[in-house]
């Protein structure tokens, strides 16, 4: 008898085999039931000339789709495969006990790939040796081990992190921001790769440990926001993502947020096509660099200012500490770009290219008439518009204004908006724009302008 962590290995294997055999049996049985019912119907019709329906015998449709059999036929195979994967992982965890590894039942029976003991032990020995160093020597040694860690599979990575103490995780984190002559020893690309590896591979228990012990895996905050604690948001509703969820916070990334809104205007399913919630509490977002997809995996923690999300936040109906896919999307973009400060300031074409990989163009707003804009929008092209810097006074007495009133609306200076629609039938024609500040930014979420007003106050149009 072989038991480990509350699992009787032989019995679990027998259960798995029985489960694996059930879809074939269910399909075959369903086919026999359906064929018999069809034959019985045929007999009824042949015997009387009366339809099966009139005879109350038309049950072949119901029988052919017997939900119980269909469920087993369609689902039990996947469950059997998952149990086998978990069992293989459990067995490999058990074989590591002799090498000093310990696992809880939840860790050992995770749906993670089986562990190559030799590869894991080699990586662990290298990493532990590196972490035993001090100062810059530790950072250089850790840098030398990162490729080895990258070469591990998810099961091995989880076992590796699980075998390290909290102090060792903190030492690993220290090494990641080690510097020599003011320059980082571990390059940003290596930090990003390690963060992706760990957040995408670890089971939930170890993922929670690195969220707590390795803050350097998070996108760095700029000087203005450094020191703000991270807080975990409730799970994001990716499938229910809507335009109104996009509410800019204290970060100057209007261009990025307006670009997402522009993509969502064209394709309401845009977010769920590019963002996935993982079982371990992380999210994987797909961006594009030079037109090629780049996946970034981050956890659901975001910088907080008191109890509120400091940067982009979701549906105001939830309050600013509610579930927010946009805060996580923004965080993943900051991670890709090297930090929150690195996504401040930009244009819509840059945002749309990063979001979709398609080429986007930036135009002087005078180059496009409302008819041109309407044509682009009708063709399903995402568009954003950038406002001018508004000033008052003249020469030495002039000064910049943060916003300007245009009719009943307020236009924020040097701000990227999403172009929502153009009404060519209005007298005069108008364009409607959405401010990424959203509904709680203290100004109108949507503004409507005539062509003259638009060209007076906006000088840039990005076409995705």
């Amino acid at each position, binding site marked *: 008898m072989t038991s480990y962590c509350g699992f009787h290995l032989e019995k679990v294997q027998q*259960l798995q085999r029985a489960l694996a055999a059930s879809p074939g049996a269910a399909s075959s*049985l369903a086919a026999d039931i359906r064929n018999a019912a069809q034959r019985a119907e045929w007999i*009824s019709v042949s015997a009387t000339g009366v339809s099966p329906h009139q005879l109350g015998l038309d*049950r072949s449709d119901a029988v052919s789709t017997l939900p*119980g059999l269909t469920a087993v036929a369609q689902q039990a195979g996947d469950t059997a495969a998952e149990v086998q994967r978990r069992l293989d992982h459990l067995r490999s965890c058990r074989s590591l006990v002799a090498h000093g590894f310990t696992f809880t039942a939840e860790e050992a029976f995770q749906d993670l790939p089986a562990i190559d003991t030799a590869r894991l032990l080699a990586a662990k020995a290298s990493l532990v040796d590196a972490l035993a160093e001090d100062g810059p020597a530790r950072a250089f040694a850790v840098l030398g081990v990162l490729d080895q860690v990258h070469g591990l599979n998810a099961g091995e990575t989880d076992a590796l992190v699980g075998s390290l103490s909290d102090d060792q995780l903190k030492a690993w984190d220290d090494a990641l921001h080690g510097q020599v002559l003011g320059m980082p020893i571990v390059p940003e690309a290596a930090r990003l790769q390690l963060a992706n590896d760990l957040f995408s591979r670890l089971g939930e228990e170890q993922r929670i440990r690195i969220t707590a012990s390795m803050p350097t895996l998070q996108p760095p905050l700029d000087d203005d926001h450094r020191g703000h604690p991270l807080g975990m948001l409730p799970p994001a509703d990716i499938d229910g993502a809507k335009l109104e969820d996009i509410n800019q916070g204290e970060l100057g990334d209007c261009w990025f947020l307006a670009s997402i809104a522009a993509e969502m205007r064209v394709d309401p399913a845009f977010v769920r096509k590019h963002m996935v919630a993982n079982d371990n509490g992380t999210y994987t977002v797909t961006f594009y660099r030079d037109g090629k997809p780049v996946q970034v995996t981050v956890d659901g923690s975001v910088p907080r200012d008191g109890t509120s999300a400091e940067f982009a936040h979701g549906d105001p109906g939830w309050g600013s500490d509610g579930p927010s896919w946009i805060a996580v999307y923004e965080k993943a973009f900051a991670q890709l770009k090297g930090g929150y400060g690195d996504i401040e300031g930009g244009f819509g074409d840059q945002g749309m290219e990063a979001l979709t990989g398609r080429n986007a163009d930036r135009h002087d707003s005078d180059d496009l008439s409302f008819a041109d804009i309407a044509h682009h929008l009708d063709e399903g092209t995402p568009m954003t518009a950038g406002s001018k810097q508004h000033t008052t006074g003249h020469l030495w007495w002039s000064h910049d204004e943060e916003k300007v009133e245009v009719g009943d609306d307020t236009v924020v200076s040097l701000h990227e908006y999403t172009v929502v629609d153009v009404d060519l039938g209005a007298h005069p024609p108008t364009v409607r724009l959405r401010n990424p500040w959203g509904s709680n930014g203290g100004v109108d979420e949507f503004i409507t302008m005539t062509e003259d007003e638009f060209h007076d106050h906006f000088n840039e149009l990005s076409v995705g």
Partner: protein
Amino acid sequence: MSEPSAALLRAYAEELRELARAQADRAATCATLLDGVTRLDDDHTWQGTYPDEAHATIHGWVRGLAAAARSCHDQAASWRARAADLDRQADALPKPT
């Protein structure tokens, strides 16, 4: 469509009874399809979050299979009743004189 003969009606009735017998057997097979799984799905085999979730899933399937088995039983019963009808229909046909 011409009226079937008494011999043909009795042959149909016999085939329906045979179909009903086989369908009742299938009902039994359906009801016990996951016995090999449920027999092992207990604390002696595995324990923890995933086994609890799997247990709930397996029991959902077992309930669905029980419903399918009941449906097959009902069907078999209706075919037997129909076979008896056909026998009576054959008996009622005029006999050659």
